[in-house]
């Protein structure tokens, strides 16, 4: 099974909109971010299944990540 990673705004540049990772034991958002060559300080919001995420929470079957740089508006 795969973990779906959704990238947004400038984080898409050179990476695309969605990337899939093979789920293996101990796979965390931190590992994924490193693999994607994204600096942690460039991430403003990390969601796991639409809820506030934790960089070190091991991912589980069916999880999806959404990663955003700083964004805002009104």
């Amino acid at each position, binding site marked *: 099974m795969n973990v779906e990673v959704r990238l947004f705004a400038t984080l898409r540049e050179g990476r695309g909109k969605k990337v899939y990772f093979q789920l293996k034991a101990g796979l965390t958002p931190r590992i994924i971010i490193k693999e994607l060559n994204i600096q942690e300080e460039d991430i403003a919001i990390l969601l796991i299944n*639409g809820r506030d995420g934790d960089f070190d929470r091991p991912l589980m079957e069916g999880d999806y990540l959404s990663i955003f740089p700083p964004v805002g*508006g009104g």
Partner: protein
Amino acid sequence: MFGYKGKVLRVNLKDRTYKVEDLNLHMAKKYIGGRGLGTKMFMDEVDPKVDALSPENKLLVVTGPLTGSPTPTGGRYMVVTKSPLTGTIASSNSGGFWGAQLKFAGYDVIVVEEKADKPVYISIVDGVVEIRDASHIWGKVVSETTDVLEKECGEKSKVMTIGPAGEKLSRLAAIMNDKDRAAGRSGVGAVMGSKNLKAIVVKGSSKVEVKDPDGLKKVFSESLKKIRENGVTGQGLPTYGTAVLVNIINENGVLPTNNFQKSYDDKAEAISGETLAEKYLVKKEACYRCPIACGRYCKVDDIEGGGPEYETIWAYGSDCGVSNLGNIIKANYWCNEMGLDTISAGVTVATAMELYEKGYIRDEEIDGTPLKFGNDEAVIEWTKKMGLREGFGDKLAEGSYRLAEMYGVPELSMSVKKQEIPAYDPRGIQGHGLQYATSNRGGCHVRGYLISPEILGLPEKLDRFKLDGKATWAKAFQDLTAAIDSLGLCLFTSFALGAGDYASLINAVCGTDHTADSIFEAGERIWNIEKLFNLESGVAPSEDKLPKRLLEEPIPEGPSKGWVHKLSDLLPEYYELRGWSKEGIPTDERLEKLGISEDMAKA
């Protein structure tokens, strides 16, 4: 005179006269300018029970002390009047270049009184005021009116005008300036229309004097640095505009869809800021002295113009079940041309779609495209008809609350105090929902944008479902926002700047002695006088509420599934923090403490 021009222009449209009065500097210090000073002046002059569309209502156009100054984003003005949509105080803000130009023309405030017997426009050129015939532009759309008047009044003149919607007294009518910037909300365009006032043109060359130019240079470059280095104001907004929010709000499961029946739109990517930039963006646009440049200018087929903003994309997109971004851009274009508030107009179409699908609006009533969710032709056609009050569009022009009320189901209008709620489902953002409910001008996201801490993590990340501390955050954001709106700056600066920065900017320009605390206090003072106006105008504290759907129907699917808004748990703490009674009425003690009682005694 520093910051302020010290002059109020009072125009009487009935006898076509005007006079120039001194600005009350004591009140200006207390209520700053823009929204605050405008509300104070309005309350001193107008009976709160006035019919909003009668000649006795007044229209105040008010700049802030920093409007027209060199401070970043210092170009904004506020329209203050009684709202024909909500019956509350209305204060609608706009950017562009018109506000700064009014200062250059020599005035801080314009007070428009009474009603002209025929369509007129006001021309103000370097202090010289003329009330001119407007019969040749009456009925014309915003861009055409602007072109005609710019020619008539000369190079560099700036035009603020209403479109057909304002002339026809639509309760959703905006006042437009620089063609595509809007004092959008609360139906202020209808007040202008009710006075037979088509436009105000301004042009001038008198600069805004600065008390401490060296000090300003320093705080100016400090704040500019903060704005440029901030991820949102330095990167997110300039690159994608406000539409960058579509995806993040949807990923959180709080993007209202099909008139708030759902809160997740599986087609959101098609209408996102990223897609807008890829397919339709021609260039970005900035208001007067703005380093952020969040404005978009887009083209689709033979239509091009300013926008769309996030709110518009949502209202005409997800809220109407529409995913054709090209047609949303066209609907936005027609809102600008007709002079309609894009939030209220889009949400009203969405409400009509629910009423139609549930069988309240019958086929034989509507003289056009079926009002079905997902019908991307309907959003264009009904916007034009709404603007012209043509056929069934006449009913839409009354706004979603009155429309749903006509069919006996006002609860299907997603509004607070009869004003349509913007693009964030409060069921999944509890603090923001409290802000919606307590907003003095009804459903509104710019009276305290708790999306910032609850979704975007600015200045810190809060759990959006938790209630703890949310009343404190709501009050602080509401008060700070009231102060920024009064200074004449853009609210988007607050992603990067804090109350201390605003104090330094106003002190350098005006020579005042503000601190971060006194900025918050001025904001609280303004919030309280707005509440007092509403109470006197007959808007009961029980109107601090949310639509039944948001309190009783859990979000059916997506990441915020199962949530309702817990307003009754939040309101008591909020009222207590405000120092108001349990019923939500400002107490004498708090009014005394804020120095409001003494002003009321004098008025």
